[in-house]
């Protein structure tokens, strides 16, 4: 290896810590996706097993009923084995996987005592949670 070959760096400790955390998070994410897919499949099988005779009308937009848009109601519906609520619950698990990754990144940055990036990550997490559980606040206000 020639010494001036694009500045190789001997050991990069930060990159190695990053990589270890990244690998752990990667597996965690995949587990989350598999879990979400299994829940969605379960709901889907239950839905199709109920032999729905007509295809829902997707041509005209009418939105979903509240039972399928509010996180607490979806959890409640899944506990009651409602097929569509179970599918939505699986989709919520899926939406939660990147949120979980951002959450665990805080730990990674904390291990490096990187306060700047702990702050940055908390801002990103707050934005995500605001979007994901925004309706909990609406429920409490009602």
């Amino acid at each position, binding site marked *: 290896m020639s010494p001036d070959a694009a500045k190789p760096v001997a050991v990069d400790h930060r990159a190695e810590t990053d990589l270890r955390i990244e690998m752990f998070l990667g597996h965690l994410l995949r587990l989350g996706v598999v879990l979400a*897919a299994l829940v969605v499949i379960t709901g889907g099988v239950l839905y*199709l097993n109920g032999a729905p005779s007509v*295809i829902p009308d997707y041509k005209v937009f009418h*939105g979903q009923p509240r039972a399928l848009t509010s996180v607490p109601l979806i959890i409640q519906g899944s506990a009651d084995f409602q097929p569509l609520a179970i*599918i939505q619950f699986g989709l919520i698990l899926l*939406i939660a996987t990147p949120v979980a990754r951002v959450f665990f990144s805080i730990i990674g940055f904390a291990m490096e005592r990187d306060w700047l990036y702990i702050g*940055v990550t908390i801002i990103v997490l707050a934005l*995500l949670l605001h*979007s994901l559980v925004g309706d909990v606040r609406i429920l409490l206000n009602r």
Partner: protein
Amino acid sequence: MNAIEFTIVVALGSFFGGLLGSLTGLGGGVIVVPLLTLAFGVDIRYAIGASLVSVIATSSGAAAAYLREGYSNMRVGMFLEMATTVGAISGAILAARLPTPTIAIIFGVVLLYSAWVSSRERDDAPTDQPPDKLATRLRMDSTYPTAQGRVAYHVRRVPLGFVLMYIAGVISGLLGIGSGSVKVLAMDQAMKLPFKVSTTTSNFMIGVTAAASAGIYLHRGYIDPTLAMPVMLGVLGGALLGARILPGAKVKTLRIVFGVVIAAVAVEMMYQGLKGHL
């Protein structure tokens, strides 16, 4: 066609969408949304909702494979996520206010741009960039593995990248796609990240960006479980197969052919939008 047949047909279409999206680097969303709206007559809002969850599935599902290589730059990714999540939330809010034909026309324009980007050769930024004051202060400079060991690189033009990432977020939230082509533009061209670093960092960011608007779409009732179920499972399956066969695949021809097809779809999308049909 009954509900079971419809589910199977949508799942198969989404599978090919996910496969082609992964092989060409365009992502499943740009194929799934036109497929659902143009071929199945689905309202574009339902199509966007279903596409968005499939984007998250692809991003999170592929993360482990991408991360093993050790290219992604978490600091750059997380810093720019502030821009993309705010953008995604703005995009989701905008989606509720814009008439659907306008959304279809914007979708067509973004499709054309993505087709152009993917059919073009990407030239790797040279690693000998001079250090940048802001990037240094934000500790963004890092190293990445090459055949000669880890090579250091400097990150450039953070503010420009930040603004472009905001736009990528708006597009993602408005159209339900990963908008990887805009993210890669920001990181490759503006911030001069090495090609592999920007690709892997972009994959991480796509999932987080989509999650920011998916919550809003869910609360708005845009995510229809009976439609999102086959789309999400199909795209995920296709993307995973695509990732597996990609190393041995001859993607160059595929990219050019596919670029032409996507361009035709984009024109159709804009035409239908102008006629007010979507």
